[in-house]
C-alpha cells in the first residue's frame, strides 16, 4: 500500500489520474509491467487497473449489489450476464469490505463512509493487480478515515494487490502505509515511512512558519 502526499495543487491527483489513463500525460512516459501505458487498450487496462475517484456517481439509484457487479464488466459477455465466477468474485468483495448487510440498499441511502466502501468493493470485484484511489478519505470523520485506511491495508496484504492512493492524511499514512511518495516542489522522495522520516522528507512539505514536523512522533505541530 502506497500513498502519494503533497500540498494542494502539487499534482497528486494529476499523477494518479495520468497513471489511471483518465487524463492524457503531460510529458514523460509511464510503463506498466514494462509496457508503455499508451499501448494498452481500454479493455486490457480494465483487467489490470481499477479506480476509485472523488467525482460523484451519476446515478445513485443503483443498489449496492448492482454497483459492485458493474466491476465485473470487463469480464462479462456482450450483454453483461454475470457468470458463476463473477458472482463468486462479487461476494468475495462484499465480504472483504463487510457490506453484506447493505447489499440490497440503494446508493442514495448510504452515508459517505459506506458509499466509499462500496466503491472500494467495486474496484475489488474488478479483480485487478492495481487499485488507484483519489483521496479515498476526504469528507470522512476520523473514525471512518482510519477504517478506510485499515481496510485498504488489509486488502493490499491479503490479496497481494498494489494499492496506490492520494491523501492529505500524512500522519495516518506514516503509521499505516508500506511506502509513501512525497511530492515536493523539486525533490520527490519515495520510500518506507521511517526511511523518509530519517531523510527528513516531511519537513519540507509545508512552509515552516505554519507547521513543523516532529520526527519522534511522526506528527505535525502547529506553530503558535
Amino acid at each position, binding site marked *: 500500500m502506497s500513498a502519494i502526499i503533497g500540498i494542494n495543487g502539487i499534482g497528486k491527483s494529476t499523477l494518479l489520474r495520468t497513471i489511471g489513463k483518465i487524463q492524457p500525460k503531460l510529458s514523460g512516459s509511464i510503463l506498466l509491467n514494462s509496457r508503455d501505458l499508451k499501448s494498452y*487498450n481500454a479493455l486490457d*487496462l480494465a*483487467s489490470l487497473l481499477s479506480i476509485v*475517484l472523488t467525482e*460523484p456517481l*451519476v*446515478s445513485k*439509484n443503483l443498489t449496492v449489489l448492482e454497483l459492485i457487479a458493474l466491476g465485473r*464488466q*470487463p469480464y462479462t459477455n456482450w450483454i453483461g450476464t454475470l457468470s458463476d465466477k463473477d458472482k463468486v468474485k462479487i461476494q468475495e468483495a462484499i465480504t472483504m469490505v463487510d457490506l453484506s448487510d447493505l447489499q440490497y440498499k440503494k446508493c442514495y441511502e448510504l452515508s459517505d463512509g459506506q458509499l466509499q466502501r462500496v466503491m472500494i468493493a467495486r474496484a475489488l470485484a474488478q479483480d485487478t493487480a492495481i487499485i488507484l484511489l483519489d483521496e479515498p478519505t476526504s469528507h470522512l470523520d476520523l473514525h471512518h478515515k482510519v477504517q478506510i485506511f485499515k481496510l485498504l491495508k488489509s486488502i493490499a496484504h491479503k490479496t497481494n494487490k498494489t494499492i496506490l492512493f492520494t491523501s492529505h492524511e500524512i500522519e495516518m499514512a506514516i503509521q499505516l502505509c508500506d511506502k509513501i511518495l512525497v511530492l515536493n516542489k523539486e525533490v520527490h522522495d519515495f520510500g518506507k515511512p521511517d526511511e523518509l522520516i530519517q531523510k527528513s522528507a516531511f519537513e519540507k512539505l509545508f512552509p515552516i512558519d505554519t507547521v513543523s514536523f516532529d520526527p519522534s512522533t511522526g506528527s505535525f505541530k502547529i506553530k503558535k
Partner: protein
Amino acid sequence: MNTQKKYRLFFVLLLLALLVCLVINISLGSVSIPLKDTFYVILGNSVQNDSWNNIIWNYRIPKAFTAILVGSGLALSGLLMQTLFRNPLAGPFVLGISSGASLGAALLIMGSSLFSGMLSFTFVNDLSLAIAASVGSFLVLLVVMIVAVKIKDTMALLIIGLMFGSITTAIVSILSYFTNAEKLRQYIYWSFGSVGNLSWQQLLILLTIILAGVLLSIISIKPLNSLLLGENYARSLGVNLKRSRYIIILATGLLAGGITAFAGPIAFIGLAVPHLTRQIFNTTDHKVLVPAVLVYGAILMLICDTIAQLPASVNVLPINAITSIIGAPVVIWLLVRKKKMIF
C-alpha cells in the same frame, strides 16, 4: 433472484396491456365497427361490409402499428439521450434532430415557393415530405457527429445540439414569415404530428429503421450501464467510450430522425416514458429499461392515438397535443407521489 421474477411478471402484464390497447385502438375510429366484426377482420376473415375490411386493414391497423413504432422508438431514443448526457431533461430531440427534420419539411413546403427556380419539385406529398425531413435531421446529426469527433466533453455536445436546434428554428420562423397562408397551414399541420396516412410500404421502411436503432441500442446496453457511474469509470471498466458514444448517437438519430420524418415532431413521449419506466420499475439497469421503455412507449402512444382520433367523430385532434396533455400530468403525479426522482 426474486426481483427477476418480479420483472418477468411485470413484462407479461405489460405485454397484455399492450395487446388490449392495440385491440381497443383498432376497434375505435370515426366509423363505428362492432367489436365482433373487428376481431373477425383481424383474424383474417372478411365481413360482409367490404368498406370495413378496407378501413381496418388499410387504415386502422397500419395506424396502430405506426403508433407502436413511434412510441417505442421515441421512448428508447429518450432513454439513450438521458443516460448518455447524464441529464434527466434530455430527450430524443436534444441533438437538434427534430429541428433538422422541421427545417427539411419547412424548406420543402414553404421554401419551394421562395426558391421555386432552384427546386425542381414543388409538388408536396407525404413521401417527399418524409424524405425532406429525414434529410434535414440526418444533416444536423452528421454535423453533430463531426463536432463529436473534436469535442470530448459530452455536456458541450449537448449544448451544441441545442444551439443547432435554435438556428434551425430561427430559419423556420424566417421562412414562415415570408410564406403564404396556405403553405404555412400545411407546415403547421405537419408539425402537429400524425401517425395516420402511412402505407404498408412506408410502414415497412419505418420498421427497418426502428429495428436498426433498437439493435444498436441493445449492443450498447453494457456501456450504458457503466455510464451510470460516470464517463471516467466507464472508461476504466474497458468501455471504448468514443465508439459507444457514436453508436448511441447514431441509434438516436435513426430512431428519432426516422420517426420525425414519417410522423412529424412528436413531443413528450421521448422525455417522459423513460421517467415513467424508472419510477415504476425502480431500477436504472438498462437490461430492464430498454425493453420496458419500448413497451411503455408503445402503450402510451396507442392510448394517445385512441384519444386523438375522437372515437365516433370525424375530427382528429393533433397527436402532439394529446401526448403532452395525457403524459405530463402522469409524470407530475408520479414525481409528487414518490417525492423523489429516480435517475
